[in-house]
């Protein structure tokens, strides 16, 4: 309780000091946009409920993160921004920042210091990939497979997804280029370090599509993180790509005969942005929330509900057990050393620059 008060006091102080909101008047209702499902639930438990309890603010959830970029553009055009804080991935956050749709964040005044008095900028370190982006978690997109449908030698490498002879059956992939292009090149013999250089060239893109062509007939394309778990549970696919948190829930909470690969999983960041152009009261409220929700304790709290790694270094030692299952969460984190070994780190700025192009090409390829 004491730490909360200190944090709040610091929050209030720095707000008064660092900005022009005389009297600190803040709106008492805010709309937070996120991904829905278990992920929103983890935020509700770790951030929203404690924040509402302290401040009395009503928090409305809007599960629109999947279409956040397009919707924010439209809202901006109509001059009617109804969102206060938006949860997005690093790539879209960079794009929104470049377009001026997200507010620039100063880590020194707007984010809480670590308990050991390390500045927020150092504590977040490499995860501060854009000046508008407040990182929250590290997650990875990886493959789960049905243990009872893959024969006696379960897959060990992400390239087994491309091996339709050893593992016959359908596999599910996201129907967008991110991750699929990287995996295709990786399994076509390109070294991890060179993948984005190769992908920049049109030959490299052809190479990736040629590799994806080899499994195109065996793929069920999905466009939401929830679909692959359903397909795996049904046995409609033998393996499929989704977020590691979804697979954790499928395996540990719902006890399905599924296991997951920690190989070539693509690591990405997810975090908050505050839309540009909010009224002063709403902006003050959003900043106050961000200060609270991204401090060391809060970030570590979220990992009690979902196995995504906190973006702050100082939160890592605080990762404990699952709130309901009592499972030790550290080994399930994408950031745990054993899982990191064969991971693949996404190049956010590459996707921020090329995403729209690649989306068009990928959709054209899908339609062929």
């Amino acid at each position, binding site marked *: 309780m004491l730490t909360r008060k200190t944090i709040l006091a610091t929050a209030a102080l720095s707000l008064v000091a660092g900005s022009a909101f005389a009297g600190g008047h803040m709106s008492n209702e805010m*709309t937070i*946009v996120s*991904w*829905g*499902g*278990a992920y*929103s639930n983890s935020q509700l438990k770790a951030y929203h409920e404690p924040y509402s309890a302290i401040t009395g603010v009503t928090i*409305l*959830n*809007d*599960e*629109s993160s*999947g279409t956040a970029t397009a919707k924010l553009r*439209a*809202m901006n*055009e*109509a*001059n*009617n921004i*109804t969102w206060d804080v938006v949860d997005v991935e690093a790539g879209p956050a960079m794009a929104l920042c470049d377009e001026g749709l997200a507010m620039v964040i100063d880590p020194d005044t707007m984010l809480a210091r670590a308990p050991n008095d390390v500045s927020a900028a150092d504590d977040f370190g490499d995860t501060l990939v854009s000046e508008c982006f407040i990182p929250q978690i590290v997650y990875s997109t990886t493959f789960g497979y049905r243990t009872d449908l893959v024969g006696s030698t379960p897959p060990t490498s992400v390239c087994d997804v491309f091996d339709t002879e050893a593992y016959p059956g359908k596999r599910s992939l996201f129907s967008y280029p991110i991750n699929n292009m990287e995996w295709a090149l990786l399994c076509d013999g390109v070294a991890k370090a060179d993948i984005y250089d190769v992908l920049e060239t049109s030959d490299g893109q052809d190479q990736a599509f040629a590799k994806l062509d080899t499994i195109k007939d065996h793929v069920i394309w999905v466009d*939401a*993180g*929830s*679909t692959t*778990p*359903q397909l795996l*549970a*049904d046995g409609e696919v033998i393996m499929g790509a989704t977020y590691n948190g979804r697979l954790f829930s499928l395996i540990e909470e*719902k006890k399905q005969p599924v296991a997951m690969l920690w190989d070539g999983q693509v690591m990405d960041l997810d975090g908050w942005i505050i839309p540009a152009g909010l009224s002063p009261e709403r902006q003050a409220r959003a900043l106050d929330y961000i200060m609270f929700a991204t401090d060391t304790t809060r970030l570590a709290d979220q990992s009690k509900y979902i196995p995504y790694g906190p973006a702050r270094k100082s939160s890592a030692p605080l990762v404990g057990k699952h709130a309901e299952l009592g499972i030790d969460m550290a080994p399930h984190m994408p950031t745990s050393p054993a899982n990191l070994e064969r991971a693949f780190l996404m190049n956010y700025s590459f996707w921020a620059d090329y995403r729209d192009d690649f989306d068009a090409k990928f959709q054209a390829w899908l339609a062929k």
Partner: protein
Amino acid sequence: MAALTVISRKPLSFVLPSMGLLGAVFGILMGMSLGNAGLGIVIGIITSVGFSYFSVLGAAKEKLVRFSLVFLALVAGYFSFGLAGMIAGGLWGWFYGWFVFWLFEGRYRARVHSYLTSGQVLWHFTFRVICGVVFTYLIAPIIVVIPLSFNAQDFFTFTPEMLNFDPAGYSLKHYHDFFYNNEWQRSFKNSLIIAPIATVISVTLGTLAAIGLSQSHVPFKRLITALLISPMIVPLIISATGMFFFYATVGNFLENSLGIDKNLVGYVKVILAHSVLGIPFVIITVTATLVGFDNSLTRASANMGAGPVKTFFKVQMPLIMPGVVAGGLFAFITSFDEVVVIMFVGSSKQKTLPWQMFIGLKEQISPTILAVATILVCMSIALLVTLELLRRRSERLRGLSPT
């Protein structure tokens, strides 16, 4: 009629091939679901012809034969597919026994006119089978949702426990989630606020428009009708985009210039947008009832000293009521089911049930959606039954009886 019809036994040369055909159809379906349609046909024909031959031989003891058929099917179903198979097998055995004797004893002739040729009789029953297939095609997707909503697992899958009717495979937890989850309750309440108000607005404006358009002196009648009906014809996504920008401006004006609370403005925007979508339905149904409306009644009413308002409520309104109610029902359902416009015009404060279901499907495949769907189906049935009962009652009171 029945007394005139000759009911006689039919020759085996007719019964056996017919039963073979039935066996073939059943064999294809079974074979396809097990992965070998060809083998399914062969086995289906052979077993069906065989069983019907023995059934016909024992025709003197029909009850015994049919009972043993049911018993055999029960046992075969149980050993092949467990409890669910036993129930399906029992039903199949009962149907099969009934069908064999229906054909053999010529009972199918009992309820049709005696002068019909064989071809006409065949068509008579084929027509009914086709109707049944159409109904199944319409209803099956709705029916299948209901058992799945009692799934004990969090997936849209019939688990082995469910198929074996193991109580452990069933649970009410998705209903519990609907009634205790804040998001579901909030969106349900929003739907119950938005849809009725939008309906009242649509019905009022739509009825007035239809009455106006039915007057002979209105110029550009067709053009105006086309404009008013356009929300129904223009693809919803296009209306929604237009409405998004239009209502954003309206909303900004109401909030900033008139200082109205932003949540209230949110509801006003959504309700107005939904009533626009509902108006065309009201116009169409009311216009249809006005076609048969006798205008001399309004003149008679005026002749007896009633003003236009009194004439409308006392003479015109009661007569066009069925059209108004039907239009209102359509307008209500349009708003209650609408997911595109609400996502553009509304903010999460106004999240309605379809929006929540859409999110639930996209971000988290949860059978709570199926539980909600089941509840909504029951509500719709209750609503339609109530309306139909009320209609019959009012017709009875007015001395008209449904024929």
